[in-house]
């Protein structure tokens, strides 16, 4: 399943691993992404805390984690090709994979129609 937050992050959940990134709307607002600052594997991130920083030329945007979990993998491809976040944010432009904690807050995510409505009104 895939869920969204009002801060324009998504979490694609497969078992107890969530693949997290920013949405197409978010990347379009940021402009050309030039660098992504990713957390070290093993780090525990609480919901709502800073997960990554996405930088464009003129801005640096904090990405907050939609769920609580431990970092199992980060997208190493972004080092050489940060543009993947612009080109394919929900696919090859993913940021971080978290192993979710048992109490992870998956129920609090928005579903696709709710998120689409949020973006339409933005």
């Amino acid at each position, binding site marked *: 399943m895939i869920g969204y937050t009002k801060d324009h992050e998504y979490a694609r959940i497969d078992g107890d691993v969530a693949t997290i990134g920013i949405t197409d709307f978010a990347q379009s607002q940021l402009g*050309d992404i*030039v*660098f992504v600052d990713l957390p070290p594997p093993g780090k525990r991130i609480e919901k709502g805390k800073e997960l990554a920083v996405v*930088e464009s*030329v*003129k801005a640096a945007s904090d990405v907050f984690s939609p769920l609580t979990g431990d970092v199992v993998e980060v997208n190493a491809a972004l080092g050489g090709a*940060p*543009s993947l976040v612009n080109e394919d944010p929900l696919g090859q432009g993913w940021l971080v994979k978290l192993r979710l904690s048992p109490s992870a807050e998956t129920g609090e995510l928005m579903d696709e129609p709710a998120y689409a409505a949020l973006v339409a009104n933005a």
Partner: protein
Amino acid sequence: MLDRPTRPGPQDSAPPPPTFSGHDGLDHEEPLLFEIGRLDASGVDFDSPEPFEDRLGGLARTAPIGLPGLSEPEAVRHYVRLSRKNYSIDAGIFPLGSCTMKHNPRLNEKMARLPGFADIHPLQPQTTVQGALAAMQELSDWLTTLTGAAAVALPPKAGAHGELCGLMAIKTALRARGEAETRKIVLIPQSAHGTNPASAALLGFEARALSAGEDGVVSVEAVRAAAGPDTAAIMLTNPNTCGLFERDIAAIAEVVHAAGGYVYCDGANFNAIAGLARPGDFGVDAMHLNLHKTFSTPHGGGGPGAGPVVLSERLAPFAPVPFLRRGTDGALRLVEQPEGQSFGRLSAFHGQMGMFVRALTYMLSHGGDGLTQASRDAVLSANYLRASLRDVMSQPFGDRICMHEVLFDDAFLKDTGVTTLDFAKAMIDEGYHPMTVYFPLVAHGAMLIEPTESESKASLDAFVATLRALCKAASDGETGRFTQAPRRAPRRRLDETLAARKPVLRWSADSSQSR
């Protein structure tokens, strides 16, 4: 003889063909030093050293460094050609808001180069530099008189460094009261310059944003609601970065003092009020002055600056070293070791003496009357621009009297397909450096214009006429003029994404450098 005509013949209207050289008339392309210099070339000559046995302990360099050299004629040509690619105040109005790009008097440069100022070492015996210390004392007296302050710390090397100095004094004062662990919040308006929260963060403070009211200034109520036992200080800019006088500043200072905090004032905009109002009178505890803004020292393409900080009675005891003291014998001395509650030393030596000499020369040339006139003319000019543009450009807080700078936003460009950035780039083609854009953050697509007192009325009128024409072109749908700009500068718009994605921060021998 008809083979040498003395007036132009028939002209064709075709665009000129590209040149063979790559140059464009008087505008020359200039390669990198590393592409034209040679390791064995030099433009300086010395007598060879006398034969000697080295005492380098085996630490002599063996490999070449890779530094190219040029003869003097080649070096002069290289740097002259580079210089011609820069806009400058000497060439045209530089209307950058909050930068105060006023004329840089040449007398300043002459005085700074007197050997008695330029050729003295900071650690010479103090008896041999009494003139320098006297100049520093005179400058200090001017600064404390202009600001109504009790003391001034001369060492900070730039405005941001001054902010750090002021906050260090505040933190030291809090420690002396035993309150440094409980008072960690610094209140900062959202319109503040980025150096304000950055300076606070360096010292472990937490920057808490204050919003301005609908009228662009910070209200006493907002401060009253935010100030409390966890407040270390408030950092205000006055006039603020929207060009407006913070009219509640005295009341705000009282609220902050009553809550146990200190008042820091960012003095970047002092050019609006120098000689007309004193920050000490409205409760400011620390304020940095930018000698390279208000006091005419040159911007030099990005530096050097100087940022002395004036201090209230409350904070004066915590001032850093070195500071000046007059002995019983009348001689001036620099006190270099911390005494009493001084927070210590900020940096090596005594401060930016070269800028002190320039600023003092400027102050003596103007006098109190001249500085006051400068502030009046600066505010007059900014309001003249406002009055001349208010019907074609939009102001985020409505049309009201501004101080030395006027703030517009991009509402007037709505539906034109032209952004603030495009508008700025079109100004370049018109021969003007753009105003400050996208700052302060509180205005959408902000355009902050500060003319200073150095512009003639003719210069202001020409500037206005051009901006009006650009506004009309935008609303007439001539988007290409803007989106394709600049076309008449040494370079067109740059790919800043590439520069950030694949940073190339130096020349290297193995890279293929394309022209």
